[in-house]
C-alpha cells in the first residue's frame, strides 16, 4: 500500500497480577485511548498542490506545493523529496527538502537530510552530517502565527501520480489529507 492511514493504539495500562486486598480501592481503569493517526505518501506517489492535514503525515514520495498542518507533525522520510512551504507543529526532515518551514514546536534536520530553505521554529535540531543551506529564526513566545486551518479544505490540489498507484490509492481512505482524493 502506497498511501495508507495508520491507527496506532498505545498499549493499555498493564494490570497488576498480584492479588488485591478485599477492601482496597479499585485500580484506575486503563482509559488511555490516545490514538496516533498518520498518513503516508509512499515512494511511488508524486503530489503537487496544497495539503491541509489534521493528522500526522509522512512523505516517502515526492511533494511539490505547500503543506498546512499546524497541529500535527510532518516527516520527510529518507527517500522523500519535498519542494514546499510547510506550516506544521513539528517537522522532521531526513530526505531532500527545499522550502520554508514554520513550526510552533520542533524542527529537526537529521544527519542524512539535504535541506535548503528557511526554518522558523521554537526549537531547532540539526544533526551532524546534514547537508544544509538554511536560514534559521527562532519563534519566540507571543509571535504571531497564521490562523488555524478551516474545518474543511476549501480546494482540491492538482495531483500527479504514477498509473500503477492510482487504483490502490483511490481505494484508500486517507483522513484529512487532500492528497488522498
Amino acid at each position, binding site marked *: 500500500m502506497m498511501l495508507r492511514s495508520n491507527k496506532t493504539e498505545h498499549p493499555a495500562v498493564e494490570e497488576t497480577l498480584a492479588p488485591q486486598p478485599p477492601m482496597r480501592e479499585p485500580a484506575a481503569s486503563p482509559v488511555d485511548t490516545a490514538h496516533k493517526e498518520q498518513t503516508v505518501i509512499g515512494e511511488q506517489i508524486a503530489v503537487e498542490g496544497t495539503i491541509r492535514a489534521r493528522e500526522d503525515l509522512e512523505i516517502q514520495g515526492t511533494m511539490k506545493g505547500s503543506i498546512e498542518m499546524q497541529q500535527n507533525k510532518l516527516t520527510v522520510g529518507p527517500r522523500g523529496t519535498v519542494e514546499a512551504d510547510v506550516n506544521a507543529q513539528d517537522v522532521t526532515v531526513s530526505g531532500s527538502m527545499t522550502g520554508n518551514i514554520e513550526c510552533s514546536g520542533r524542527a529537526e534536520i537529521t544527519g542524512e537530510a539535504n535541506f535548503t530553505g528557511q526554518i522558523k521554529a521554537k526549537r531547532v535540531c540539526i*544533526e*551532524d*552530517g*546534514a547537508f544544509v543551506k538554511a*536560514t534559521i529564526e527562532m519563534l519566540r513566545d507571543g509571535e504571531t502565527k497564521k490562523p488555524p486551518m478551516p474545518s474543511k479544505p476549501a480546494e482540491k490540489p492538482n495531483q500527479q501520480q504514477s498509473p500503477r498507484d492510482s487504483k490502490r490509492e483511490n481505494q484508500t481512505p486517507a483522513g484529512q489529507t487532500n492528497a488522498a482524493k
Partner: protein
Amino acid sequence: MAEPKTSAQPQIPAYASRIIRPYAAWLERRPEGHVLDVGPVCSDTINFVIHRVRRVSVCDLFRRLKRAIDQAAFVSSLGDALDYPAGSFDSIHLWDLVDRLEDEPAAHTVQRLRRLLKPGGTVLLIAGGERSDGAVYAFAVRENLEIAPRPQPHLLLPYHHRCNRDIMKLLEPLAPAESFVYRSGMRELRFR
C-alpha cells in the same frame, strides 16, 4: 605550507574558550543580528547563536568541499554557494575552513565572505595548531561557553596548515581584534 594530510578519529577535549565569552556578549548587543556559519553544521553552535541574535544562516562549505573533491570538481567554485547579498551578516563563523583549502580557493572564498560582512562585523576563526592531526571538527559551543571539538568522520578533507601570519594576510583588510593560542595548539582569532 605543510603537505596536505588526512586523519580519521582523534579526540580533542572540551576546553574553556577565552574568545567565546566576549563574543557571546558582542552578539547579545545585536539582538536583530544575522550570523553566517560555514559549517560543519553543529546544533549546539546554532543554538548558542540563535538564543542571542535574530537569525543564523548555515551554508555548509565543508560538505560542499567534500563533494567537490569526491566528484573531482573545481574547488575554486566553492564560494558560489555564498549567494547572499553583500553586507548581509554581522558575524561569520569561518572555523578552520581556510586550512582545508589551497591558496587560490582560500583567497577566493575569503574574499567572497568579506563582501558578505556588514561594516563593523566580525569573523570568528578557530583552528588547530601546527601539530594538528588534520581531522575535521565541528566546534560545538556548549551552554557553559566551553568549546567541545567534535570529530566529523564523514568529512575527510585535506589539511593545509596556515600560520597566524598567513591567516591574517588572507583576511586583510580585516584586522585581528583578539587571538588566543592554547597548549593543545588550538588557536582562536576574531577579526574586525
